[in-house]
């Protein structure tokens, strides 16, 4: 029985109850700003990257509504199968993946390609939510119980980091850990894991590749590397500061318009946006992403079941970490890593993944109203 199809109430009432208009409105606002900004980053070019992004947004929206229509109990049933599918795709990458700039991340043919690591972000949320739902009755403080989810997360994470794609790998770990924490991991364990992370970073420091270590050096003092590795960071900061309170206006930011800002499509679209919209605009985007995240937490608290609740928390974590880490990177609060800003960064798989996540959110949202 599907309430979207079988609800006897009027169409208006059904739409009002079946579609989470908060999610739709926030998403529409973010997507609109993102597309305008992508157009600015490309010097007013509506073809090319913007067109591609728009196609993916269209495709993603369709996928979102399809997922919305699916009962999240069906998602629960398919959770491990979906996870298995994702891991299979990741396993195929080293053999059939398309190599771009020394990194093998894509599957597909020519221009039609997807990034399994992106899809994995939402798939791990589904799988972990199911596992944690199942484990709800038991005590999460028993560390042996955590072995399974640990392996479940680590396997795809390792595959992704090997591509190499450290940023996405770390994102996977962050989202997963957030989910486990939300599911009730004991505070003692959380602290233990965090200290373990600090220790392993300290140990891992000596095993890090030179370029990774250098990134941290650059992050600590970019002016020292202003002409080399610090260039990107510094130019991004200048762009943000140059925006001032009210911004320079669309396509009027000198940093972006004259090409001083590297990677305006992928890692640094927020710098372009900051320069053109100023503090007024950036505050607006912060509010939008925060609202979306908090609304997802709100939905989690209203869900009927643990699975739905954790799905919402997972999607919240997905949006939260992407937005916060990417913006913090632009603002030089964290080292530069390849973490994208949802919808602002050009990239089809990412858009699709985020839309799928929003679909899950709306699916759970819809289930609130059913008894």
């Amino acid at each position, binding site marked *: 029985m599907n309430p979207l199809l079988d609800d006897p109430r009027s169409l208006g009432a059904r739409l009002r109850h079946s579609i989470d208009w908060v999610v739709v409105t926030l998403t529409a606002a973010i997507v609109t700003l993102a597309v305008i900004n992508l157009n600015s980053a490309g010097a007013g070019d509506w073809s090319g990257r913007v067109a591609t992004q728009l196609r993916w947004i269209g495709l993603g929206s369709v996928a979102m509504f399809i997922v919305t229509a699916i009962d999240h109990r069906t998602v*629960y049933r398919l959770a491990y199968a979906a996870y298995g599918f994702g891991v299979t795709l990741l396993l195929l990458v080293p053999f059939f993946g398309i190599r771009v700039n020394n990194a093998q991340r894509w599957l597909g043919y020519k221009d039609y390609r997807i990034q399994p690591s992106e899809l994995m972000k939402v798939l791990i949320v589904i799988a972990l939510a199911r596992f944690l739902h199942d484990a709800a009755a038991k005590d999460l403080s028993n560390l042996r119980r955590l072995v399974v989810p640990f392996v479940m997360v680590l396997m795809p994470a390792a595959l992704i980091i090997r591509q190499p794609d450290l940023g996405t790998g770390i994102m996977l770990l962050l989202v997963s850990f957030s989910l486990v924490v939300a599911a009730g991991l004991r505070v003692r364990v959380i602290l233990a894991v965090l200290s373990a992370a600090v220790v392993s970073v300290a140990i891992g420091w000596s095993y890090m590749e030179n370029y990774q270590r250098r990134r941290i050096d650059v992050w600590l003092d970019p002016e020292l590397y202003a002409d080399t*590795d610090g260039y990107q960071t510094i130019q991004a900061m200048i762009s943000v500061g140059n925006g001032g309170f009210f911004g320079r206006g669309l396509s009027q930011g000198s940093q972006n318009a*004259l090409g001083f800002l590297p990677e305006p499509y992928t890692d640094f679209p927020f710098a372009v946006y900051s320069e053109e919209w100023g503090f007024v605009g950036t505050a607006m985007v912060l509010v939008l992403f925060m609202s979306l995240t908090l609304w997802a937490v709100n939905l989690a608290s209203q869900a009927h079941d643990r699975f739905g609740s954790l799905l919402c928390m997972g999607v919240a974590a997905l949006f939260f970490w992407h937005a916060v880490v990417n913006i913090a990177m632009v603002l030089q609060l964290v080292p530069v890593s390849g973490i994208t800003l949802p919808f602002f960064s050009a990239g089809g798989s990412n858009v699709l993944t985020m839309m799928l996540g929003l679909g899950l959110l709306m699916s759970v949202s819809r289930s609130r109203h059913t008894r």
Partner: protein
Amino acid sequence: MISLHQKDDLRDLRPRFQATVIFVALAFLALAGRLCQLQVLEADHYDRRAERNFMDKVDVEAPRGRIYDVNGHPLATNRSSYTLYITGWARFELDPDGGVVSTPEGKRRPMGDTTRDTILSLIDFIDEADRDKFLALLEELRADEARGRYAQIARRNLSWEEYARIESRLEVLDPWVEIRESSRRFYPEGVLTAFVTGQMGNVSARTLDGSPHLGYRLGDRVGQTGIERQWENYLRGRLGERWRVVDARRREVADPPAWAVDSLPPARDPIPGQDIYLTLDLDLQTVAYEAVSDKLAGAVVAMDVNTGRVLATASVPSVDPNRYEQPIPSAEWKAWSESPLKPFIDKTVQEHFFPGSTYKVVSALVALGDPEFDPDEEIECEGYVKFGKRKFRDTHVHGPMNLEQALVHSCNAYFYELAIRNTLSLERVEPVARALGLGDRTGLGINGEVKGTIPTEEFEAREGTYQGGVRLNSAIGQGNVKATVMQVAVLYAAVANGGYVLTPYLVDRIETNDEKLVFSSEAQRRNETPVLDASDRARIHAGLVGVVNSEDGTAYSQRLDNIVVAGKTGTAQVGREYRNDTEVEIDGWDETQDHAWFAAYAPADDPQIVVVALVVHGGTGADAAAPIVMRVIEHYLGDTSSETELRPRGYGVPPPLPGQQDETLARVGKEGTP
């Protein structure tokens, strides 16, 4: 399967939700705080840094001042040219599709081998050495990241072919190569005024490092010789600047946005160099140069006897100053530097010679200063004089000679005899010679003058050449007496003008680009009272007139029909001093031959011009040098004997307005006569 239909008890998760909300809010608040810092508190700082990114200062070269002759004929001007700039390290490269390839972190990278080879293949090198020099510069820029990141001048004056070739390949060469419009020096008269204008060359590393306050930039051109060097500070002008909007590749944005243009600082116009007007008369210079240019090596100077204005000065051989604007093949350069004809030496001031018999004027003056000397006493010339064990020879047996006749015949024995009598001891000659401007720089100011030498006994002792006979040789301008052509001209001008030693000068006036007078020369006498007694002058003058106009005179064959010239020949023996050991064989060049001199002034009754010619190893003065002098005098005075209006305008006299008669000319010319 666990049923999801039943509402789970989610109460245990509630604290986590609450904590999450707080955590999320704090995280976003932190970002907002940071944004507030960057975009509100520090906005001005980043605003300036963004401006600094796209603002680029471009030096605007000041046009170099031009050099004109006295009538405004250009002797040195500027022509537009293309200059090749090379950057050794670029932050961005262009990929073949035309897009910008930035290195992963915006890192600079040095120019690649293929780019270097492409550049090399596009330039026409004149020889291997030229290519090696260019290659060395490229390699230096490739190796030195600090210097290599700025565009450096790599080659000036690209030919049209080179320009077209490079321009068509700019797509491939892009961040490394840039062609900018620039200017080169052009000398319309070329070799004719080579030593006057001088030539340009690259600024030396010593000037760049040692005198940064002068504000030269690497690759700048500065005057190396002649007027170009002496008056460099007037000619060079001051650099201007303009600002432009550039993109990240530091290329000028073709159509910069208005907001960017508005934020640029104002441009500063360059101050053009100042124009120099010389005293040189190009027509006379042409005559003088042509007269001397059929000799292998020689020099000629023409000067106003009353003011010291240099009217013509030429030295052969010389190198066309335009040649220095292009690379010079090393083989050619080597040939020049090794040539016994010394094409780099301005033989009017930079090299001294035995003055030979032209020096007898000095000797005669010294003798006249001796109260015991009787100029009318006749001394018998037997063709030689015996002094100690040595025999000092004369050219002929002249018979009985008095002073005037001795000058006319250029009798050596007469002066030997005076020297033996100690009338012409070194101690007596030296002060008179110095008073007449010999033995010291004339003060012309260009081309590093030499002093010449006037020997004293101490000098001879120091040199180890002292012997009793040296004063005999000195008396006829041999021995250790050395003088430059310019010094001899000053000497004869002093005889002509009644005893005033003049400082010769070439620069008449200097004007700014908008024709404001900056500097104006005045005649400078070294002495306020004449160094010559009027009666002494008259005796010597009579002798000099006789040289040209008496049938016995050494230069009688060269006299002019309509102008009475007073002059003196000189045939300076060089035989033993020079060894003919140069490897280069030049047809007609014999280093055992005498130097031929002729110094003269005219017209004899009212001297206007002094002309001195020297033909190095040219033979006798009358045959080799006198014709040169006569041609110059004839040209200068030839027309004036019939039509006074055609006389050259005095210095500082403006040309007549249209319709106004140019009557001031002759008057001013005469006023200068003492």
